[in-house]
């Protein structure tokens, strides 16, 4: 297991937790602009970590992210979080970061299928 991926996942859990806690505070203090700013920054931090985990390390946190990774549906490969072996191996070690970015769907919404990869599925 890639130690850096594990570290990033832990950081994401921390960051999401902070954001969740601030969110509950803001539910009952919706006019606290300083805290709103903090939530915004925290969400950005989580988003960067998520992009790194799902992009650079090709680790699918969500089923929708797993559609970006090529011929196989990697969602079912990553261990479930209740398993002691979570998060397990990153299953796309053979794919470079460049390939990963190339394969991810960044075009318009109607074209959100990796054509080259879908062809690989046939």
């Amino acid at each position, binding site marked *: 297991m890639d130690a850096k991926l594990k570290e990033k996942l832990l950081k994401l859990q921390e960051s999401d937790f902070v954001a969740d806690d601030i969110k*509950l505070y803001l*539910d*009952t203090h919706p006019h606290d602009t300083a805290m709103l700013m903090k939530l915004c920054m925290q969400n950005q931090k989580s988003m960067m970590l998520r992009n790194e985990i799902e992009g650079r390390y090709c680790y699918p946190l*969500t089923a929708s992210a797993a559609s970006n990774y090529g011929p196989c549906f990697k969602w079912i490969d990553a261990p479930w979080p209740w398993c002691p072996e*979570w998060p397990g191996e990153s299953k796309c070690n053979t794919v470079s970061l460049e390939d990963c970015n190339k394969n991810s769907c960044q075009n318009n919404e109607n074209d959100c299928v990796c054509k080259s990869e879908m062809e690989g599925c046939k």
Partner: protein
Amino acid sequence: MWYYEKKLQRPINIKHTNPELAKIVISQYGGPDGELGASLRYLSQRFSMPNEITKSICNDIGSEELGHLEMIGTLVHQLTKGIDCDEVKKSGFSTYYVDHGTAVYPVSASGQSWTASYIQSCGDAIADLTENLAAEQKARKTYDNILRLSDDPDVNDVIKFLRAREVVHFQRFGEALRTVQDLQDCKKTFAMPSICSCQNMGI
């Protein structure tokens, strides 16, 4: 609508199986003050909450409780993974094992299956939110009892985390309750929903 992410709110990695402890911890899965009841209580109550703050707090705490349900299920799963017949017999886990094996089932430590009778959702925001305050304290109490009975540091770290969340939720439900009390007649010196307050209550 919910989306699933393959991660827990907090990582859990239990190093030693302990079916006796699993039989205790399961109470926070399907017991009277457990996380299943908590999540369904708040997520059901939110439909009849009278203002935006109370709707949001029931929705968001209810969602977090679903994550806690998953964490308790993880504890039970890891505490019983791969145990053998001798361990089942010696630990007293056999009464659970005979019906559910090492699967996770919503039941209390004393063997009662989860029932919706544990919760209330009655459309009276003061009654519902006051129940939630009690529910958070009762959950905190159960976590205190688990800490008294458990000597596994990996389990205790998770239980302490969940206990702290109950305290935060209690605080937020209290703040939400005050916004409903503010809707009541300000001349009252105590919170008493008026029968005629339907308009104020947004019902």
